[in-house]
């Protein structure tokens, strides 16, 4: 039977909806969080433009290196070094500027008016640094044979330490302040790179577009997916996996280097002791929330973009609605959302795979208790004792019923095929 044009478009929409269910879910979640925040906080209603700009700026700063993290994850690897690469790259960028800055009578470099030539050299030098770090990672993984986790863990620890020594030596050589631990860059044009909302956003969008073209419109991108899905099969089919890993880790490190430039510009200081500390986990969280599977081969650039935006919207929402100690709640909420996102992914895969028990056996029963206690404790802290106790009971009963239903369904599945046996 010939389908009607209307039928075709309906089919196309439903196919697109199926293909992008994760992105659509994230979009819906973003809308819900924004709607809740707008309802309960004046800030979004009275200062919409400023808040949109700030959320987009923060999204862009995190998004730049989350794209690199996502490409590495899709290719089947992991990059734990982005936070330290940010710190190291920021230090390199600031050090180059310091070295090229004019000097005052006391012998101190003046970083207030550096000029575009200095910026260009510093940025090029920083990107080269990122490329070299990525190359080192690829060599450690493909030639030395270290697992990606170990290779990038070494960089996570080592690069920050190297950056601290480097900054002190640079200050000792180029300034009269001696071995101080940070480099200041006071040029306003440079500061605007990270502080003016549309500049990081523009960089993020351009990088997203390039990443999308690479991953979705080129053979190299398809090979990266193939390698992430099954590296051995990809290698046997003739794909040069070592070259692909080199590309993936270089992209991971170079995007982190770009983020390093932006973060250094934002605060006008390279301070490797604290700069970018823990950011690698934010990037991985954004990629996972955006639909990337840590097993590799799965994930989209658009999903990662929305994952970053979702995380930043939620963090901003917490800051707007929790009037005291919002920072304290930020980690709980982000951690919770990462688990929730992974649970959704599991749910989708389980739907395809014919079902999965979330609370099996005694382990499941214990976890129901833990989750209920956690919910009750959180509600007690945030709302009060009565609400905490009520939510504890609701969680216990609700999750208990789900666990019970799961067991019955599992028992039916087990009994079903047996009963049909001859």
């Amino acid at each position, binding site marked *: 039977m010939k389908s009607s044009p209307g039928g075709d478009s309906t089919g196309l929409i439903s196919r697109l909806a199926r293909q992008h269910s994760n992105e659509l879910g994230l979009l819906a979640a973003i809308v819900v969080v924004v709607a809740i925040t707008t309802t309960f906080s004046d800030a979004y209603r009275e*200062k919409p433009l400023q808040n949109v700009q700030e959320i987009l700026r923060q999204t862009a700063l995190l998004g730049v290196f989350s794209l690199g993290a996502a490409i590495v994850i899709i290719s089947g690897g992991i990059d734990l070094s982005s936070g330290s690469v940010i710190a190291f790259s920021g230090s390199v960028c600031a050090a180059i500027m310091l070295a090229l800055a004019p000097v005052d009578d006391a012998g101190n470099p003046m970083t207030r008016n550096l000029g575009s030539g200095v910026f260009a050299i510093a940025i090029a030098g920083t990107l080269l640094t990122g490329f070299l770090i990525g190359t080192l990672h690829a060599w450690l993984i493909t030639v030395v044979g270290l697992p990606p986790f170990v290779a990038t863990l070494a960089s996570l620890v080592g690069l920050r330490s190297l950056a601290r020594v480097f900054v002190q030596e640079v200050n000792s050589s180029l300034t009269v302040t001696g071995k101080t631990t940070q480099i200041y860059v006071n040029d306003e044009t440079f500061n605007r790179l990270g502080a003016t909302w549309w500049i990081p956003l523009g960089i993020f969008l351009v990088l997203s577009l390039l990443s999308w073209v690479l991953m979705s419109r080129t053979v190299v991108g398809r090979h990266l997916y193939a390698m992430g899905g099954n590296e051995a099969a990809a290698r046997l089919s003739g794909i040069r996996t070592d070259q692909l890993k080199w590309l993936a880790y270089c992209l991971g490190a170079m995007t982190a280097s770009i983020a390093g430039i932006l973060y250094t510009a*934002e605060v006008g200081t390279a301070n490797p002791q604290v700069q970018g500390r823990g950011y690698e986990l934010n990037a991985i969280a954004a990629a996972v929330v955006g639909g990337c599977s840590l097993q590799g081969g799965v994930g989209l650039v658009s999903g990662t973009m929305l994952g970053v935006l979702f995380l930043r919207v939620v963090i901003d929402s917490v800051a707007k609605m929790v*009037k*005291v100690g919002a920072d304290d*709640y930020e980690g709980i909420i982000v951690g919770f959302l990462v688990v929730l996102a992974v649970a959704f992914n599991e749910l989708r895969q389980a739907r395809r795979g014919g079902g999965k028990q979330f609370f099996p056996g005694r382990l499941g029963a214990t976890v129901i208790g833990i989750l209920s206690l956690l919910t009750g404790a959180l509600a007690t802290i945030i709302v009060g004792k009565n609400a905490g106790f009520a939510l504890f009971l609701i969680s216990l009963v609700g999750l208990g019923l789900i666990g019970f239903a799961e067991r019955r369904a599992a028992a039916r599945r087990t009994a079903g095929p047996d009963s049909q046996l001859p």
Partner: protein
Amino acid sequence: MRRTRVGMIGTVAGLFVSALLGCDIRDKPGGAASSQADNVAAGTGKRVILLTNGADPFWNAMRAGMQAAEKDFDLNAAGLRTVMDVNDGTPKGQVDHLRQYANQTDIAAVAVSVTDSANGAIAKAMRDCQRSGIKVITIDSDVDRKTNRDARFAYLGTDNVLGGQELGKAAAGIRPQGGKYATFVGLKGAANAIERISGFAQGAGPKFVQAENLGDDMDLSVALKNVKDALDRNPDLDMLVGIWAYNAHAIVDVVKQRGVRDKTNIVVFDASPKAIGHMTEGNIDAMVVQNPYDMGYWGTRLMKALVQNDQATIHDMLPAYDPRMHAFTDREGDLLVTGLRVVYPDAGSPLKKEVFAPTTEFLSLSDFKKWLSSHNLTGS
């Protein structure tokens, strides 16, 4: 089965939304505010915020001062309430906080303990807050006064150069023959750190030689390592100087571990509960104590006056402020200095009141503890 799993995710998501909504309930008039857990500031009205540079018991006394001022100056009746936000010790953390404030609608005033005086981004974020209608002052640690004085209305806190000098004089009183010293601090770039360390050198005099100046970036394990490293590198080190409150603990812990108390003197800034215990045990020779309680108290009063445009109170607190001109008549008139105390052990201290500035209180440990008790404080 599918419905079951969707139900599970839905349940958890519902709990999350409930939690978020719960966060808001406490800010609603007549909501659940009165039954809040006590670590969450309840109440309504615009916020008057103190943004710290990091986390430390030092801020507890300032919080107590703010809360006392909230009652004494009846901030609630003026539609205001006090809140303390704890920064993570980084300039970026402080910039992010300030940017967030500028985008909110319920913040009336902010007092910032500036993490890094030389950081232009913090000063810029403070100016953005001012442009959003938020009154901004600095407290405890100021911006670079040469370049960023306009980023705040006034500075309220210790005269850190004088504080450093008093600590240096205490060191000279304990070791009249002089010695070799090391200073330990959180952030070497913080204005209060720079001023205290230079003041210490002035107060201690030429008989003292500085061997090390080590920053730990507010990492307590690094603070311990710094003391160990300084002792390893300088076996003849005989004066250990704690510049920030928690440095005292790191110094005492290492000195006790190494068993070098008999050949090492320890002088520190601030009197955290642990430092008071250390002095009671005879492990600290002198403390120069700021008055964070007063900083919180007077800082809150000043912020309220600024929010209400109460020119008379502003003039009363900062006499160099001319209410008619809306400007300071004296270049340094925007500094409101809170008092200092030198605290010495109850027995065996060689320190004499005469060597210190007349404005500095000179207290034995017992008398200092009595003052703390009278304000329900455990440290200052």
